[in-house]
């Protein structure tokens, strides 16, 4: 049993991946000598060398595009995009090439690439450092998208993602990088593309992922004092979604509130609402309600705590659900 932060857990997971397969390479801006601006790749270049942990030129499209080429050559690149708001120069390579090569080649070509993206807000940063762009990638067939919410998941999911033969966008909630947890390596990990009930309950289902899982757990604590038992689901995998866990919960509670930092309009909450309504129609005591960022670009950090869904906004929506 060891206690580690999420950043250290990711580091340890990547270390194991580098040890397990000589074809794994890590690339990104400042990942080598500096160890990453969040120190997530600290020490890896020193131990595995510059050929395996690569400091890239300042060019996101170049990082992803060359990773595609290396993958065609049999390597398993793990790319880092330094911040969520900088993934857009790489968007074309991701969506037009990375997502499609397996499909284009009728299954012959593999793209076992992981693109790690620190995402989400709440860190007092300047523009473009607090985005939640996951919906764009979930909407793109050919890509898989996952996100960890705690150090234990971070440790296992990064290894599983690297071992996967599919291209995976791996979102890391940067405001949780320094949270600690105990890791027991003897416990088998959950499958990568599975959701998890983070806290059981009976009255309302909260569905969250990444940074909002903790917010929802706090909300459930507060709700318990008011006599409501909220069930909190950590989706973990955003594409594909593990709806079995969700449906089972909805059939039990009959009420759902989805929560994400990303803007509400066409966020993941919308897809969840559509599927839940279709599959659990007769179980629903209230419409599926959604909490998300307002439909404006992420604001300056001085107001970000108002912008981001917090315990009060979540519980306000829970109240609305219970009122039906």
């Amino acid at each position, binding site marked *: 049993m060891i206690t580690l932060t999420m950043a250290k857990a990711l580091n340890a997971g990547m270390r194991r991946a580098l040890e397990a397969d000589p074809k794994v390479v890590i690339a990104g801006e400042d990942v080598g000598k500096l160890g990453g601006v969040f120190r997530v790749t600290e020490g890896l270049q020193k131990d595995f060398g510059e050929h395996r942990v690569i400091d890239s030129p300042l060019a996101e499209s170049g990082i992803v595009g060359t990773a595609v080429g290396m993958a065609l050559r049999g390597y398993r690149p793990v790319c880092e995009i330094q911040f969520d708001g900088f993934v857009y120069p790489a968007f074309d390579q991701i969506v037009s090439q990375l997502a499609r090569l397996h499909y284009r080649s009728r299954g012959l070509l593999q793209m076992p690439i992981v693109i790690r993206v620190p995402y989400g807000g709440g860190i007092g940063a300047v523009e473009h450092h607090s985005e939640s762009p996951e919906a764009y990638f979930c909407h793109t067939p050919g890509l898989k998208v996952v996100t960890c919410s705690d150090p234990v998941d971070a440790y296992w999911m990064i290894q599983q993602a690297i071992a996967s033969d599919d291209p995976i966008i791996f979102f890391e909630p940067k405001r949780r*990088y320094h949270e600690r947890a105990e890791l027991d390596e003897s416990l088998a990990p959950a499958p990568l593309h599975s959701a998890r009930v983070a806290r059981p309950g009976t009255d309302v289902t909260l569905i969250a992922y990444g940074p909002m899982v*903790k917010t929802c757990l706090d909300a459930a604590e507060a709700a318990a004092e008011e006599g409501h038992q909220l069930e909190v689901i950590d989706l973990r995998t955003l594409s594909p979604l593990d709806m079995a866990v969700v449906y089972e919960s909805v059939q039990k509670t009959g009420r759902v509130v989805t929560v994400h930092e990303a803007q509400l309009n066409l966020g993941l909450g919308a897809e969840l609402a559509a599927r839940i309504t279709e599959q659990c129609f*007769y179980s629903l005591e209230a419409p599926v309600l959604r909490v998300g960022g307002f439909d404006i670009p992420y604001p300056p950090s001085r107001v970000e705590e108002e912008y981001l869904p917090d315990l009060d906004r979540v519980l306000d929506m829970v109240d*609305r659900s219970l009122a039906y």
Partner: protein
Amino acid sequence: MALHTFRLPDPGEGLLEADIVTWRVAVGDQVKINDILVEVETSKSLVELPTPYAGTVTELLVNEGDTVDVGTPIVSIDDGLGAQPPAEPNGDGSEAQVPNLVGYGPRSATAKRRPRRGTGDGPVETHDQIADTFSTYAPVSRRADDREPLQAEQDAPTGAPLPGPGKTAPAATPSGGAVLAKPPVRKLAKDLGVDLGSLVGTGPGGVITRDDVTVASKPAEAAEEISTPVATRAASEDVRIPIKGVRKSTADAMVRSAFSAPHVSVWLDCDVTATMQLVERLKSRREFVDLRVSALVIVAKAVCLALRRTPELNSLWDEAAQHIVLKSSINLGIATATPRGLLVPNIKGAGSLSLVELAAAIQEVVTTARDGKTRPADMAGGTFSITNIGVFGVDAGTPILNPGESGILCLGQVSRRPWVVGDGAEERIEPRWVTTLSVSFDHRLADGAQGSTFLADVAAILRDPALALLY
């Protein structure tokens, strides 16, 4: 003299804590704004912290070598000016600290709601009230561009101006449509054959509630017997009763059951005197003080015990998978006569209930059924049922299985009958409490051997309740 406290800031790397490495000032030192106070080490680097206050250092609140949480007071400085600064507007950081990465330090994350204005309404809104808030639309003026354009000369347009984007779509006010009901209520109505359009909803905003539907599925005149209302008729005219509601459901179910499961019935007369004595004893016990205790409760218990030895009578014919599924749970149906007709709600997991719990559960499902509040979930998933026709004064029957179930036990009237008791020289005839038990079962799932064994086991327990200990 005004004393200022400097708390450890987040030096920009989002960590929760830092180590105090070297104090660059001592108590009594004069400092100007931005003089370096202390060198701290985060997990990654050494950072010098400048003072935001000028004045005299009055106290170093932490020591070199200490590991200090972000937000902890580390030094006090007296600025030598007048008034005391106001107290901290925030808490003293005793709440759980959540680290931030850049500059702003940990946010205190609490699991507490911000207090809201207390009114009876609070944030609760009905469908209608929510719809109301969509009704205004405030246009926002275009940002005025009143600077001089850069171009000194400009070509004149050669064509007509373009059409603008036009009016924006108006606010969407969902009107609600003709019938307002939640999905589960709509399903219930469908199952019970109730036409939602014919109802007036009693819920907020005219929403049709579950009760509205169940009440509507009652026949026109509420009657206590299960007989359907009889219209007055002329001497030679037939009476037409619409097939709907519970009657219709029951009819459909019986047809389905009778023509899919080959029914076999076995019956047995049984001396239940000991059971009746037990019932009397239980009635006076503390555990049963609020509960209705009758032979039915003991019969239900006996059934649950007997099913352990013959699980075939608690099984499911899975045609699609070509399996017989021996169910782990006994979901015991209790046939109940209600004003609307016969309902068979079931008690989930009856096999793991104690006698007291079973009695309470039976009472609950029966009362709920009579009140018309049985939920669809309670009507589904049954595995074995009990029907008590003894209350009508008959001995036995050939009950039809509740569709999907594997067996049904029919309890006849408990009456005084002559019975042979004793043996050998003691053999004689005595009046005893006797009842006839009939069991119908699905011959696909079980044979006469199992059916009979089951019935015999039930009877054995009723005859001598102590034998329940054997199961």
